[in-house]
């Protein structure tokens, strides 16, 4: 019998982010898979009541909360203290939490304080002979392990997009306050804001149905012997707008800025996917002007349907990894695609 703690923090609106609702589903599956287990909810935020009410009907035994102005902001010192306090107060043996940026920073510290073990980027759970096993990738999405741990407490941070979000009716939850004192020393860091690109310049859209991956070929000399970086950028941005797509990039393309080569101004290292970038989850992915193999392929490990446009029919980036490879000039194809999308 396990004591499961679903641990989450509120977003800027005082609600639970989507990834937290997905993780709640995981926690409920674990509860169901481990007979006799109990589920406690632990919430962190400036005010956690609305979030607790949001999931009041999920089947929790108890709700605990650490709240107050000190816990409204994402800050390691206070987040780690809150998470550790909730872990202790719940007596949890398994702690399931969403892998948000805020918790990805804080949970390892909480694991240390709770003398717990921790696994992050968990992308699946299963039960074998009554034992909980998790799945996570190693070597940057190049091999997948199924593993378990004997030691408790065990913290499991679930990646976004793995489970469907929990859906249930709102209710009225009784939240038991867990008191956490914050010393001045723990307020040395202050979150002063979020730097977000303007809506028009926003190219990373985690909820998008399609990911456009742009490779370095966009800034290479074309058949006329010239570089057409501005034209490339227009094709890419038009596509993002018309298809409501998210933008990913190869490392070689985003590195070009620091190497003094032609750059696409819409790109930054934040767009980078692959071995040293992100591994986003989208239903569809369209790769353009990308070449390369291993480091690159991990960038679309979690893209379901994949198509690629490039001029090399034997490209290792596409062969065996994409469903369809269009051997064609991406400038011409994307121009036409945009024209058709604009027509509706």
């Amino acid at each position, binding site marked *: 019998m396990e004591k499961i703690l679903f641990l989450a923090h509120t977003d800027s609106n005082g609600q639970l982010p989507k990834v937290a609702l997905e993780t709640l589903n995981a926690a409920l599956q674990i509860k169901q898979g481990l007979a006799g287990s109990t589920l406690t909810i632990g919430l962190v935020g400036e005010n956690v009541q609305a979030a607790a009410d949001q999931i009041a009907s999920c089947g929790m035994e108890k709700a605990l909360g650490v709240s107050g102005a000190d816990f409204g902001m994402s800050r390691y010192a206070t987040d780690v203290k809150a998470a550790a306090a909730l872990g202790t107060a719940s007596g949890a043996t398994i702690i399931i939490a969403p892998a948000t940026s805020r918790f990805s920073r804080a949970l390892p510290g909480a694991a240390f304080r709770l003398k717990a073990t921790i696994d992050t980027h968990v992308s699946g759970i299963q039960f074998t002979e009554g034992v909980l096993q998790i799945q996570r990738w190693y*070597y940057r999405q190049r091999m997948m392990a199924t593993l378990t741990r004997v030691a408790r407490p065990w913290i499991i941070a679930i990646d976004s997009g793995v489970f469907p979000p929990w859906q249930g009716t709102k209710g009225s939850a009784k939240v038991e306050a867990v008191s956490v004192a914050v010393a001045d020393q723990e307020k040395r860091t202050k979150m002063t804001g979020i730097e977000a690109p303007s809506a028009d310049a926003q190219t990373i859209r985690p909820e998008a149905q399609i990911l456009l991956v742009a490779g370095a070929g966009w800034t290479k000399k074309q058949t006329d012997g010239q570089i057409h970086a501005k034209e490339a950028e227009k094709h890419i941005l038009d596509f993002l707008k018309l298809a409501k797509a998210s933008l990913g990039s190869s490392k070689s393309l985003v590195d070009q800025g620091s190497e003094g080569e032609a750059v696409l101004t819409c790109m930054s290292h934040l767009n980078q996917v692959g071995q040293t970038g992100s591994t986003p989850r989208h239903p569809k992915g*369209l790769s353009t002007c990308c070449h390369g193999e291993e480091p690159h392929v991990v960038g679309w490990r979690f893209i379901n349907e994949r198509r690629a446009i490039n001029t090399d029919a034997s490209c290792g980036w596409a062969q065996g990894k994409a469903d369809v490879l269009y051997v064609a000039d991406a400038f011409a194809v994307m121009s036409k695609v945009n024209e058709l999308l604009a027509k509706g």
Partner: protein
Amino acid sequence: MTTAYNIIVCGSLVPDPLQTLEPIQGPTGPALKNEMMLPSVLDPWAGHSLFEAANLAKQHPGSKVTLLSIGPKAKLQQLMMIIAQKVPFELVCLDGSASGFMDSREVAAALAGAIEKIPGLDKTKLLVFGGCSSASRDSGTTMQMIAEQLGITDVFLAVDELKFQADGSFRLLERVEGGQYQVSTCTGAPVVIGWATGNLPEPPNNPQVGMANMRTIMPSLQKAQPAGLKTDAIKFASVQLPGQQRQTRIVKDTPIDEIAKEIVTWIKG
């Protein structure tokens, strides 16, 4: 007057990303086939943190950069041949596995223990850098556990920018969801920072830097102590390569209009 910082960069080797990796079952758990033979590179995000550290040290005279690595001695020596010419640093190393299958808690304890043993370390001027996660374990947990063991309560993860302000405080940009940055200020050292890519290019090789570095690298390698990592924390049921191989349909010698139409239909479908 600028502050001189002790900048410790935690980073080790990972297989060259261009290599094909294959998991095998070793005597103590999963491992990589021909692991000792695989060409290695400095873990990419740790590499970025090393370049950021060197840049900061240049701006703050008197600062010292120490690279702290756990890895098999022979492999670390090969790695040093590659990176020693990049930026000035001193090496502290522990002899042990650099495998991604090790538990981060064990690795963090060994690294923090090594930091505490660095002679004359002033913790009030300590900046502990590393990658936001490794390209091997990819857990993003080691730096925070080092912070806990060292008693440092200001930790930042996936940082792309660290700016020193006139009053001695720091301003940091951390990557958060949706391609945005969280902006934070911190009153100053000590801090632990897990870097993302940062903003600096890889420095060109400088043979003079390499020669100066090698004076401390070779003795450090020779006296590297065993890291004492245990391998029993995780019970692996399996480690497998992704099995899915797609049957790629090649479309060539096809009019652009036709290709575009097919793509649009697929997008809308």
